[in-house]
């Protein structure tokens, strides 16, 4: 068990919550944007598996981590009822996050729905490296839009929504124009699988290298169950690799979609 204290929790949009907890490990030893925490919801028999949620913001000095998540199923709904002062069993940060390249000039951060949260910590770290940042974020509708102010601190934010209720009507790929990409040296994307697939294809056309953060159902989250794999191509060989341990972030060109 590794119990940490809940410091605050509040709803930030329709069914979306922001929770801040004490960090489960010493972050000064290093952590990466794009890594995730693995939450044990309760010790009830209702939850055999932990829930992976990405790091959204880190306060190194206070040793606090904020995670933003959608209360979609039983587990996350239960999590959203945790109160400040209560304890929660969390392990992490786990996995490999987004690699950053000091030579980059301009990075495009692409987030879809609950894929947006990890872009905040990533944006902060890239900004610290003096990089130009453009965020392209898509939501189902205005009611689900999150973290726009946070991203605006790092640079332009292009917002899209499927129903046109906020920003332009459309998908993130609609905003990944040649004009935008011409200037970009790297992209980082997190979101639902169909979005990642479309982003990969689009950015291949525009010839921008980048990274995808994959979402697979996890058993252990620490590399022991081999439940969370995704086909990854390296040296012309496709192997199922553990997204929890070798990922969730992979080089876009390596990720095989069916």
């Amino acid at each position, binding site marked *: *068990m*590794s119990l940490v204290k809940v410091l605050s929790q509040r709803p930030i949009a329709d069914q979306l919550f922001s929770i801040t907890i004490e960090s489960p490990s010493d972050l000064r030893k290093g952590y990466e944007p794009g890594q995730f925490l693995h939450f*044990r919801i309760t010790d009830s*028999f*209702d*939850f*055999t*598996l*932990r829930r992976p949620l990405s790091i959204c913001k880190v306060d190194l000095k206070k040793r606090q981590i904020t995670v933003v998540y959608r209360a979609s199923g039983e587990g996350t709904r239960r999590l959203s009822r945790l109160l400040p002062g209560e304890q929660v*069993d969390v*392990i992490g940060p786990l996995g490999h996050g987004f690699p950053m390249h000091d030579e980059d000039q301009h990075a495009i951060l692409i987030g879809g729905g609950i894929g947006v949260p990890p872009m905040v910590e990533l944006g902060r770290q890239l900004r610290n490296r003096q990089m130009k940042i453009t965020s392209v974020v898509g939501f189902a509708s205005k009611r689900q839009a999150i973290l726009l102010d946070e991203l605006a601190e790092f640079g332009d934010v292009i917002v899209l929504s499927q129903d046109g209720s906020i920003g332009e009507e459309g998908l993130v790929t609609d905003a990944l124009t040649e004009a935008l990409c011409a200037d970009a040296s790297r992209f980082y994307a997190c979101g639902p699988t169909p979005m990642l697939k479309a982003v990969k294809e689009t950015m291949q056309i525009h010839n921008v290298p980048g990274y995808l953060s994959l979402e*697979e*159902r*996890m*058993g*252990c*989250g*620490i*590399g*022991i*169950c*081999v*439940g*969370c*794999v*995704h086909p990854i191509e390296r040296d012309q060989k496709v*192997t*199922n690799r553990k997204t929890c*341990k070798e990922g969730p972030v992979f080089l876009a060109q390596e990720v095989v979609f*069916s």
Partner: protein
Amino acid sequence: MSRLTHVDLRVPFLHKMLKNPVMPASGCFSFGEEMRQFYDLNLLGAIVVKATTLDERQGNPTPRIAETPAGMLNAIGLQNPGVQAVLAHELPRLKDFRTLPVIVNVAGTAIEDYVEVVKALNSSEVVSMLELNISCPNVKCGGIQFGTDPMMASEMVKAIKAVSHFPVIVKLSPNVTDIVSMALAVEEAGADAISLINTLIGMQIDLEKRRPLLANGIGGLSGPAVKPVAVRMVYEVSQKVHVPVIGIGGIRTGEDAIEFLMAGASAVQVGTANFTDPYACPTIIEQMEAWCKEHGVAKVEQLIGAAWRK
């Protein structure tokens, strides 16, 4: 009953003395590398590694995992790097744990595959026992067949015993009409011990997609939900065979482990609980010790088969 200050957790198992009766279950510990970050593996009674096949396998497509009431389904499909890679890269890293028996779980499709894997493992200095997985529900051809037919299971065990340098534990499938017949068949064929249970076959439907949630359709059910089935099988089998039985299925606490010992298990394996909590194994060991102290049990070995009908 007086509270004890010291409890002897050791249990004898196949000519070894285990430090305690708790080992991870195959497939829920990988090859130990990851768990080392969480605790000292020397705390364990033994180490059991992931199913190893002759050739590298990529396993099933995803989703491979689903959560169920008090349990989970998995359809990994035996993904593993193959016996040569296991010998070259995985097992040598377990050399640090000399005091622990290392048990390799062996799987395959045909008897010949199994035999080849065992022959390859014979050369290892790290391995001390084999666990024959004739019960994995997640590979389509073969595999499960051996686990549900006493004649085929017997044939398999004989073939392995003929080549193995190590004691052979046979892991049985619970998806059978008569678990005692299966156990007697493999004992008769030369099994040195029996471990049970592997997963029950189950399925979950994704209501939104209107199709089975797991890409593989069916998967193996494990976790606390299956514990009553496992305890029943251990209780029935352990009274009928003369070889030791390893109890597996839904163990999450020290009391669960003790329940299996009382049912007749000589040791236990912990599977799914490692996912719920990576510290599950050492916690269970501590809880067993605490229970024994509170209940005046000086030697945990005394609990084995305590619940048998006399």
